[in-house]
């Protein structure tokens, strides 16, 4: 089956600490980059999807962005699904072009979360995802919520902190091959285990970064894709899964929406997890990736960390995963964090990932997770 939609342009800005950057300037740079990459003019864009911002929060971020860029597309809206936003935006853009409502949809994200907020400010803003009456009064934070999942999951499947640490180590190794990555210095399992405890069992180096950065894609219809200049990447399958928002109300602490979202994406694409050449999967914490890899079916329960330690997530491993370094080492800039995964998948499928290139990569899996493993969206992309 086909989604009748193609990624025709991709771009991400510099990432990390970018003094002088702003949410809208990052959006604009990413958007211009993606449109140029597609060989299109801004006037060819007839749909715009944005996500959300912490530094310039607004009720109508997509309208703010279009005003900023001076464009007046026929379709314009913002999507908010936390870390699942990027993949959901791509899925929605695919629906817009497949249905004929749009020809070329620009999906654009960015935030200067590092220089535009204090670290305390970012942590405080994120803690607002907690339930105002039944979670936040107890000092919940996003890391603490994931720690609650981690503790339970590790207990259930005998996962160790050393195994989770191996996931962080591999991400840093990947980032070392990407000249733009926010953190490139190699780390060891001992360094992860000896980094500051944030919420037991998650250490500082089990957690994603806080970065400035922006990223954008252009999604085009089959017919319109012929007018673009680069190699178009087909969106072969997509799916979503939603089980809860607040961790206190999660129906399970081992099974999450990634199971449904990935199953649907694989069926639509007509492929299985074993067919995937390269994966870019949301890695807000080491436990996030472990749960997703095992729930989606890439590894057996309790095996993802062991596989990471054996190099299976590395270049040349069974499943090269987050070849740019992911949220843990490449960058995490809000909704752009998930978009970096999608942009990296495009690089891999176009064969221009340089030192990070997975040989002969034809099929990529991209996955985003928002909230506390609450909202999931999976994409299967093909060269």
């Amino acid at each position, binding site marked *: 089956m086909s989604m009748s939609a193609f990624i025709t342009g991709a771009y991400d800005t510099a990432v990390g600490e970018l003094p002088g950057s702003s949410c809208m300037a990052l959006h604009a740079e990413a958007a211009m980059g993606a449109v140029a990459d597609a060989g299109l003019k801004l006037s060819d864009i007839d749909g715009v999807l944005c996500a959300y911002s912490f530094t310039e929060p607004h009720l109508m971020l997509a309208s703010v962005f279009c005003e900023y860029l001076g464009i007046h597309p026929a379709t314009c809206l913002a999507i908010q699904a936390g870390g699942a936003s990027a993949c959901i935006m791509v899925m929605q853009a695919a629906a817009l072009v497949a249905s004929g409502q749009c020809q070329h949809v620009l999906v654009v994200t960015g935030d200067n979360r590092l220089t535009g907020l204090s670290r*305390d400010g970012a*942590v*405080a803003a*994120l*803690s607002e995802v907690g*339930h*105002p*009456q*039944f*979670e*936040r*009064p*107890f*000092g*919940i*934070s996003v*890391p*603490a919520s994931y*720690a*609650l*999942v*981690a*503790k*339970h999951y590790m*207990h259930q499947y005998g996962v160790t902190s050393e195994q989770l640490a191996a996931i962080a180590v591999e991400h840093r190794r990947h980032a070392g091959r990407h000249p733009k990555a926010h953190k490139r210095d190699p780390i060891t399992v001992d360094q992860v285990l000896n980094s*500051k*405890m*944030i*919420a*037991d*069992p998650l250490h500082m180096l089990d957690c994603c970064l806080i970065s400035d950065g922006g990223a954008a894609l252009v999604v085009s219809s089959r017919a319109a894709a012929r007018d673009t200049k680069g190699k178009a990447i087909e969106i072969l399958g997509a799916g979503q899964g939603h089980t809860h928002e*607040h*961790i*206190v*109300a999660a129906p399970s*602490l081992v099974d999450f929406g990634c199971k449904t979202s990935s199953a649907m994406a694989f069926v639509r694409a007509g492929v299985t997890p074993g067919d995937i050449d390269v994966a870019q999967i949301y890695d807000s914490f080491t436990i996030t990736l472990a749960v997703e890899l095992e729930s989606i079916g890439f590894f057996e329960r309790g095996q993802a960390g062991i596989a990471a330690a054996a190099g299976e997530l590395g270049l040349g491993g069974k499943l090269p995963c987050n070849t740019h370094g992911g949220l843990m080492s490449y960058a995490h800039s809000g909704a752009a964090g998930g978009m970096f995964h999608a942009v990296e998948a495009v690089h891999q499928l176009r064969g221009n990932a340089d030192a990070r290139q997975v040989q002969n990569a034809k099929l990529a899996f991209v996955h985003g997770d928002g909230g506390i493993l609450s909202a999931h969206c999976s994409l299967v992309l093909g060269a």
Partner: protein
Amino acid sequence: MTTVPYPLPRPNAQTQPYWEGAAAGELRYQRCAVCGHVQLIPRSLCEHCHGRRLDWQASERTGTVLTFTTVYRAPLPVFKDMVPYVIAIVDMDEGFRVMANAKAQGREGLEIGARVRIGFQEVHGMALPAVDAVLGAAA
């Protein structure tokens, strides 16, 4: 610099009985009068059958630890004096759920699967549920 206040619960019409119960030392939960389903956390309609007749029940306040964590990095300055503090999710025997901090004696022997009793502690003038004591180790 503005000081962010302690994020105390602000009861609404649907949760007022829960917090009134807490103030009186009673842990309450919602049970659907139509289908008997017990809600994980209170709301305006039954999450199972969507019936609107919900009865408030008093809990025996015992349950089993689903998971817990010790927090070292406070999300807000108002929590900085509390670190390290414990947050637990407890599956109550009646079928609802409680997230709560653990009192000092409630931390002793706290583990996944442990049997615990929920009590209350006063936080900035409000009674919040808290793990009072561990009654027994995981089965």
